[in-house]
């Protein structure tokens, strides 16, 4: 994960410098959802939401923006007054905070932005939609629920208002996964209580594979020669990745303008429905009184957890007159990644999955720092699409990474962070001095990286991206040179040459640190992590209990699969059909190391004794490694000759070890390379139980580092005199280096810490000022266009966290 120092520091400073109200004692009970309304506190009536817009931040205004927050644990709805920055007590006669009781497990809440006198609540526990006089939640007035009229065949999981572009909605929509249906409930004219309900079962048509769309052209790089890999449409997976047969619709989104990107055109409003079983997004056209007409679904290839829709956005940077685009953002429920779909009906690639990630084989998922749980689109300052520096939009001098003005995607993660993704940055025209045409506000604002659907960078970039710090290379306890070498050196790290022999790095990677290390120059492609190359290091997840068959192999439980962990024996390499372009070519195979001691009764046996753990700290256990000749999914074969010509083999033949031993696999005569977040890379697959390098499915492209899925680095070979005669550069999608002689006899470790990279815009929602971070479970990320703030609902600390977007900072925490 990217270092969050800058953003956290700014947030901490903001929280400390702001005169925040003291935290109110905890009152929320696992909040889940929020709806906004505008309350006239003087007359105790409710106004359309837009009424509150001019009065945001005005403490003595009679209008207060209020949030109604569902409390899933207690079956209640609580109100938060954002003008006064306090939680409302629904009944002051009762000690402590009191909220209004609704049905058990409220799963959704909706209030009309135009006619907010009624509030609608979806109750999963009570299996119904409830409507209330809104005063029941905001004032101390005790008001009963309206008589329930809508009986549902199961628990509803979401609730949304109908479109309100042309006035108050005349229907609300809910969804019941168990019933596989969407429900439209008409609102009675006048009192807007619940009227007739219509059921719309989801019908399963033919599932189709998604199609690939085009890469974005919305970008600005300063200077424009920066080597950033563009997302490749060929990297979009056009296959159904997760199949299903029974629809389980569960989330709803109303799109008032439908799939029309061009603001000059008109489309019918649509209801988009996420399905957690079927690999598609259902679509309905919304008619009068909520009448739904099924449309062709969006084929996503995976079930969807949550989705959001962008407004119309210009296709080109700097444009405010078109062409236009519109997007659906969807969380893939199989792996909690986020995909982007073309949602412009006029586009030839309508419904296609877009490439959004560069420099990797798979390009169809946003780069986010953890599994996604919720998302929403932020549009602060987007009215009128006025770029900085354009007529009427004078630079303020505040243009900076933490000033959000435009369109952005906020993704709430399971790790407690919210990642922000650029879609439109209206201030970018005043950023990046190296573009030459920008009136930058800060001297540090030199380089600029902006590309649609890439993570927003949260810091100014004064210098070009590079590896900073000193790589450490310890060989048998001695530091080996990695730079400033004497002429003629052959050990340590060498100046990098490509596997094809040319000097310099592969395309998309830049040369750093005295020309010895290559790293992806794309700030979005390079996760901040430490790469460690360890001499004959252990392959992760290969520790297992194995049964010695007495002659030539160790058998593990059939549920262990060495192929999946990348184990290769000498014969596996030979049988994989490798060529010299393959990094595994000529590899002599991994080794297995016996970890357990001989049976205690054999202490004193000269063949067994070396393999007991020595009592003295200065002694070491004898080398208990055996070369793997052949690796199968659940069996490792050794060379039978080792039973006679190696110490451990003799011990094994002697019966020093029990039939069952613990073992682990190490690389042989090579360095095992792992990234602290990427892990161990390999192309080994299980083919008929034999571990083979997947040459056909994952071929090497000598010009594309993304294809070098390899975790073994080899040192240079020498002649009898010890002179270097050949080297084998090591390449993976993120880094590359070339080892010289490296005369290791015991231990050697090379460490490359990729630091100093631009900070990504990722907000730790558990950071609440001066106290240590709290644990969080993000339930929802919600944008409020009325006050242009982002709200994060955290069910673990039972908090509603409010963020200012204009100058990004934590505003308040309501608990």
């Amino acid at each position, binding site marked *: 994960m990217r270092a969050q120092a800058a953003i956290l520091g700014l947030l901490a400073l903001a929280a400390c410098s702001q005169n925040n109200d003291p935290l109110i004692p905890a009152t929320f009970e696992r909040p889940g959802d929020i709806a906004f309304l505008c309350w006239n506190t003087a007359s105790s009536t409710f106004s359309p939401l837009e009424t509150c817009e001019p009065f945001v931040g005005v403490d003595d205004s009679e209008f207060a923006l209020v949030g109604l927050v569902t409390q899933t644990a207690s079956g209640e709805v609580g109100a938060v007054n954002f003008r006064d920055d306090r939680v409302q007590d629904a009944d002051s006669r009762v000690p402590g905070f009191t909220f209004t009781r609704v049905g058990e497990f409220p799963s959704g809440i909706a209030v009309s932005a135009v006619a907010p006198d009624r509030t609608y609540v979806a109750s999963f*526990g009570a299996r119904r939609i409830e409507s209330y006089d809104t005063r029941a939640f905001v004032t101390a007035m005790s008001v009963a629920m309206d008589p329930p009229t809508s009986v549902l065949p199961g628990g509803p999981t979401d609730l949304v208002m109908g479109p309100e572009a042309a006035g108050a909605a005349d229907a609300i929509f809910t969804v019941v996964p168990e019933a596989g249906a969407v429900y439209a409930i008409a609102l009675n004219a006048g009192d807007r209580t619940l009227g007739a309900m219509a059921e719309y079962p989801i019908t399963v048509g033919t599932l189709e594979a998604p199609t690939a769309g085009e890469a974005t052209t919305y970008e600005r790089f300063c200077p424009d020669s920066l080597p950033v890999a563009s997302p490749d449409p060929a990297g979009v997976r056009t296959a159904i990745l997760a199949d299903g047969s029974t629809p389980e619709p569960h989330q709803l989104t109303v799109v008032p303008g439908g799939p029309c990107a061009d603001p000059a055109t008109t489309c019918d409003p649509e209801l988009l429905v996420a399905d957690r079983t079927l690999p598609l997004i259902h679509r309905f056209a919304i008619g009068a009184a909520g009448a739904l007409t099924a449309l062709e679904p969006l084929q996503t290839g995976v079930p969807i957890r949550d989705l959001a829709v962008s407004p119309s956005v210009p296709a080109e940077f700097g444009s405010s007159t078109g062409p236009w685009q519109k997007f659906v953002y969807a969380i893939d429920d199989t792996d909690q990644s986020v995909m982007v779909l073309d949602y412009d009906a006029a586009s030839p690639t309508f419904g296609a999955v877009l490439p959004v990630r560069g420099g990797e084989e798979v390009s169809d998922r946003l780069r986010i720092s953890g599994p996604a749980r919720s998302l929403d689109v932020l549009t602060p300052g987007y009215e009128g699409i006025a770029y900085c520096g354009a007529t009427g939009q004078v630079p303020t001098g505040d243009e900076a990474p933490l000033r959000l003005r435009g369109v952005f995607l906020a993704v709430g993660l399971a790790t407690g962070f919210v990642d922000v993704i650029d879609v439109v940055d209206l201030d970018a025209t005043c950023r990046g001095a190296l573009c030459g045409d920008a009136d930058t506000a800060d001297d540090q604002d030199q380089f600029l990286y902006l590309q649609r659907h890439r993570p927003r960078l949260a810091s100014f970039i004064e210098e070009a991206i590079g590896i900073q710090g000193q790589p450490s290379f310890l060989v048998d306890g001695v530091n080996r040179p990695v730079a400033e070498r004497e002429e003629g050196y052959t050990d340590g790290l060498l100046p990098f040459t490509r596997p094809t022999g040319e000097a310099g790095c592969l395309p998309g990677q830049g040369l750093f640190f005295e020309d010895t290390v290559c790293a992806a120059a794309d700030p979005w492609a390079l996760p901040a992590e430490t790469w460690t190359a360890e001499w004959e290091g252990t392959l992760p997840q290969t520790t297992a209990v194995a049964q010695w068959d007495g002659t030539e192999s160790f058998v593990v*439980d059939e549920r262990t699969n060495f192929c999946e962990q990348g184990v290769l024996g000498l014969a596996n390499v030979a049988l994989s059909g490798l060529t010299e372009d393959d990094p595994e070519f000529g590899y002599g195979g991994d080794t297995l190391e016996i970890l357990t001691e001989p049976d205690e009764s054999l202490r004193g046996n000269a063949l067994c004794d070396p393999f007991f753990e020595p009592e003295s700290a200065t002694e070491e256990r004898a080398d208990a490694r055996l070369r793997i000749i052949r690796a199968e999914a659940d069996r490792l074969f050794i060379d039978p000759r080792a039973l006679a010509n190696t110490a451990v083999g003799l011990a094994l033949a002697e019966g020093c070890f029990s039939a069952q031993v613990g073992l682990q696999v190490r690389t042989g005569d090579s360095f095992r390379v792992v990234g602290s977040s990427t892990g161990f890379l390999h192309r080994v697959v299980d083919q008929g139980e034999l571990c083979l390098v997947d040459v056909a499915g994952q071929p090497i492209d000598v010009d594309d580092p993304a294809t070098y899925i390899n975790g073994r680095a080899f040192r240079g070979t020498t002649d009898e005199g010890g002179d270097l005669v050949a080297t084998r550069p090591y390449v993976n999608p993120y880094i590359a280096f070339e080892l010289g002689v490296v005369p290791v006899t015991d231990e050697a470790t090379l460490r490359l810490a990729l630091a100093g990279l631009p900070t990504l815009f990722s907000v730790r929602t*558990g950071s609440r000022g001066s106290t240590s971070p709290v644990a969080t*479970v993000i339930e929802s990320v919600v944008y409020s266009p009325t006050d242009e703030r982002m709200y994060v609902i955290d069910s673990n600390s039972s908090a509603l966290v409010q963020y200012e977007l204009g100058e990004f900072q934590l505003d308040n925490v309501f608990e």
Partner: protein
Amino acid sequence: MRSPFRACLCAAVLLAGSGCGHDGDPPPRGRLYFPIALEQSPDFDADGKSDFLVVANSNFDLRYRSGSLQAYDLNVLEAQLRAHCGPLDADERSTCGINPEEDDDRDDLTEEILVVPGLLRSEVLVGSFADGIDSAASGDGVRFYLPVRSDGDLTYADLGADGALDCGDTPSSAAFDGERHECTDDHREAEDGAAREDGLEVPPDPIAVYAAPRPTGDGNFIVMAHRGGRLSLIWEPTAGARPELVDVIEGYPNEIVDLQADPLTGNLWLPTAFETVVPRAAVALDERSEDSFLFRLSDLAVAEVDFGGSFSDTRAVRFDPRTDVRRAYVLSRRPASLWVVDLEESVGRLRVREALPVGAGASRMEVSSFAAHGDRTLAFVTGFDSRELRVFDVDSAQAVGIVRGIGGPFEVTVDEARDLVYIADFRSSVLRVIDLAPMFECLDGLMDGEGVEDQCSPLSLGTVGRPRAVQELI
């Protein structure tokens, strides 16, 4: 398993080395006293339902000189509770209950508590601070295993089809005659066995136990977790024999809380407080104890949830009972949530698919499939501080029911055949019996569109035992 209270009293006693077994009065007959663990017996009479509920009482405040192990007749329990408390309104049921007639102190029994003969089938005395229970088939009956901290060892007792607990002092064929026996020494510690030659001893302070049949040979094997980060492997050389120590390994985190085995791989998962990983272990069993051992597997990093950057705090793990579903469910206090874990993708780190909010002080859980209700698979989670039981549908990842107002819910076990849940209420020293029928009537009935209730939650049926607030007991 970790007791809900970290009592300085007992810690001081233990540290002082005086142990927690001392001269003094035994616990009152027929009395639940800080119940800490529950386990249902097999179905001896082949009526499709388990016959007995075995309860370990910890004697947590050391008021008495021992704890106890009790066997309750579930047929009598269900029949009496339904008859006595079932007809009452939901609100009245919380104070309604039954009590064994063996508890002959009737003075402070309220009118709502009915004295029932035949409810308590047998009772034996064990050491104080039993900290868990597990069972495995043994001969024609079942053997229960308890880690007992005051003994610093394993206690075992056999249960026969007649409900009699045999702890060494009572022939297993004898019916419960009202007499209680104290477990004999050989039932309160594992034999040294061949492990003695290796210089191994059962480590002190056992806090969790797992038992299962040996894959080869007769008898069962038992794994205990100990404070101080050690595991011990114990087994029975033959069915019904006295367990003997086989192996001990160390180097685990100090605060292991639970111990469960993945049904497919047999690997043991060890939820742990104050760590950022879930440690694991493997058991290598051979026909000879000398060739059997415990083995540490790679830890699973807790990486896809937000525990605030310090440490996570996992309290329980259960594996999906369906053979075709490879999921685990991890109960976490930090953050307070139930994690749905994809086992196939959990390599090196927990692959958390869902994090469902739970109540404060989440303590224990069970996951059960209900074949009679459309194979619904539900997770039942107790919240000691929030005083509630939450029910989750693990497939839809939704909370479907909640029972509030339980005094101090801790251990929980689910009786699928009877649609009942039994909860050890540690604060009140009673068993809470929760009726799942109203929940299923709602869940099952609504799918047919037959109507709607205000909620689909289970309802309290009644209690077993004499409710006592903790303040009264100390």
